[in-house]
């Protein structure tokens, strides 16, 4: 049907296909992830479309994840592309329950003309972030492309870790509580303000950080009680919750009053007509926890410096499976999932 609609227009990739929302998930399922079903994986493979893969090795799991990083601008308030590349991969491993990475690989593609001083600055930032996460880079690859063939720098990192048990993003059950490890929207909003040169006279800073230590504390507080995890990066908390609800076949009810949003992010989002639930985070996690362990996990998170603002924000129910419902305090409605890059509206 869509073919008739776009008759005469050749299908091409657009930016919304990379924005972490529904359009991207559909593209991946239809093209890049298609056709591998006949070679099944022992563990969590591509078909699960999780944060990474988990392959069985004896009675343990090898967790692998890979991520390419492009960001504009490459240096932004609160971080830079190097910190993002390390934290992003460490966090994807942590979301599978693998909080002690064995090592990271790092492949860099540079544009001809890129300043050496900037590369060194990125490298220092990567080193520092690796130290924070307790990981090191064990191998890498470097390419240089001609001027204009890419925009500055692209960094790919792959992470590997061993885990005794794996947490997926599909394990939620009715009754499970939903915990957010801190305030939402900080990363995306800091970038948007910087990228579009918006005159907002307030401190906005990305939350980009490795949170494997924080997650380790949560998992240790109540072994086996964390049923699902996801880091709400591109597409924001909304996309992450939708994926979790759909894959777990439960509905998630979120109580808006309990969701931590900084005053600045709230004000900037309101001004631009954006929804903090759709804005990217790079140092936060959503945890599904068995109801009897929720308070213990919350206390463990709050005891960690990165989780001081953690909140219990919702619960899972069986009715309306696959949906994410927002209770605004006045009434209930569906939470909006972004389909592409969030765009400000006009009035």
């Amino acid at each position, binding site marked *: 049907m869509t073919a008739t609609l776009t008759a005469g227009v050749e299908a091409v990739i657009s*930016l919304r296909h990379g924005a972490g929302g529904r359009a991207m998930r559909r593209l991946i399922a239809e093209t890049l992830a298609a056709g591998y079903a006949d070679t099944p994986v022992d563990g969590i493979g591509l078909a699960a479309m999780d944060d990474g893969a988990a392959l069985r090795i004896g009675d343990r799991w090898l967790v692998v994840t890979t991520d390419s990083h492009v960001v504009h601008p490459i240096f932004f308030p609160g971080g830079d592309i190097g910190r993002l590349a390390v934290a992003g991969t460490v966090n994807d491993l942590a979301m599978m329950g693998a909080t002690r990475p064995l090592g990271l690989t790092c492949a860099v593609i540079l544009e001809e003309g890129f300043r050496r001083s900037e590369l060194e600055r990125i490298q220092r930032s990567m080193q520092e972030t690796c130290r924070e996460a307790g990981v090191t880079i064990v191998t890498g690859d470097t390419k240089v492309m001609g001027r204009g063939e890419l925009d500055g720098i692209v960094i790919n990192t792959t992470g590997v870790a061993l885990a005794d048990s794996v947490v997926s993003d599909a394990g939620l059950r009715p009754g499970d509580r939903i915990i957010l490890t801190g305030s939402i929207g900080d990363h995306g909003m800091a970038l948007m303000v910087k990228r579009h040169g918006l005159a907002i006279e307030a401190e906005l800073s990305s939350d980009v950080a490795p949170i494997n230590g924080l997650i380790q504390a949560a998992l240790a507080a109540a072994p086996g009680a964390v049923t699902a995890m996801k880091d709400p990066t591109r597409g924001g908390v909304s996309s992450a919750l939708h994926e979790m609800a759909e894959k777990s076949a439960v509905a998630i009810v979120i109580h808006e009053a309990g969701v931590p949003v900084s005053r600045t992010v709230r004000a900037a989002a309101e001004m631009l007509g954006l929804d903090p639930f759709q804005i990217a985070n790079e140092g936060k996690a959503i945890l599904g926890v068995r109801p009897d362990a929720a308070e213990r996990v919350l206390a463990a998170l709050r005891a960690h410096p990165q989780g001081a603002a953690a909140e219990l924000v919702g619960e899972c129910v069986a009715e309306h499976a696959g949906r994410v419902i927002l209770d605004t305090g006045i009434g209930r*409605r569906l939470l909006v999932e972004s389909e592409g890059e969030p765009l400000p509206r006009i009035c």
Partner: protein
Amino acid sequence: MPETLLTEGVSELRFRDPAQARALAGALGRVVAEIGRSPVSVMHVCGSHEQAIAKFGLRAVLPRDLNVIMGPGCPVCVTDIPEVDEAIVLAQDGVRIATYGDMLKVPGSAKSLADAQAEGAKIDVVYSAAQAAELARDTNEDVVFFASGFETTAVATAAVVLSAPPANFSVLSAHKYIPPVMEIVAEMPDTRVEGFLAAGHAATITGSAIFERFVERHKIPVVVAGFEPLDILGGLVKLVELVRDRSPAVVNMYPRCVTPEGNRNAQDQLWRVFRTVGGNWRGIAHVPNGNLRLRDEFATVDARKKYQIDVRRLWTHAPSALTQVCICGTIMAGTASPHECPLFGKQCVPDSPVGACMVSSEGTCKIWYQYGGHPDL
């Protein structure tokens, strides 16, 4: 009883207080019950009202017998197909198009600006008219600001046009003017609209008195309301009270921003730059005086005068059969709801919209699709 609730509710600074919202919803239910008919239908003509109603979950607390219809209040949705085509043709000719984010996905006759962008056209998303002019200052390329919006945003465009923008900057105006379309909707044979909730932000410019003539002519009450949950609920209570009392009048429930005469300075800028002309509103009708176009003395800033825009070359394919099925127009006229459209949620989704109502964050169909449209959650 509702009177005291209103004064307390709307003069309070916490315009999102859930307890007060529930109290106002209770008052609304009582007034609607006093009218004793079902449904009582009122219309708002502003996407921001629908956004707020959806965002705060207000439909869940509205009385069952009150039908709050979203009228043609989304400027993106009523931008006509040929207007989108004009921007696409300019973009294909290498002109840089600066426009608001929600204009990107509006389907033209063959494609959208987002499609043109994916094919290599230069499209910049801007947040304001001033930012578009800024963009022109930073480049040697020709920049055309594809301007949409009602009188509120048109004022911002006018201010930029009057501030000596650079020579490589011009405006492709798709601006629309709300008062004439209210006449059209009120006169439509199958409308059942018994009262209008007017947009507070537009009224800060035009003033609330602009609706006096309309009320006199059509004997339908108009209430000017703001955009916080308590503003909207308070406005609705006032509106159904006027319906109950059969007293067609203009009531300003947004006095903290709106005056009867409006912002004279802004009106002056608006009418110095723009004049009204008749034109098609997508899916609605031809609206006499509904379009805002640049006056002749601003020809150098008017993209339609600066460039030869021939949209016919886009018409190499017959328009999609689906667009014939789309009932956006009836939805915006308030005589159908999205669930009555056979395409809604099936062939027509935000990812691949058929009608413009599924494109904008202010479009009825998109809002229903995203927020559920069903209050029983």
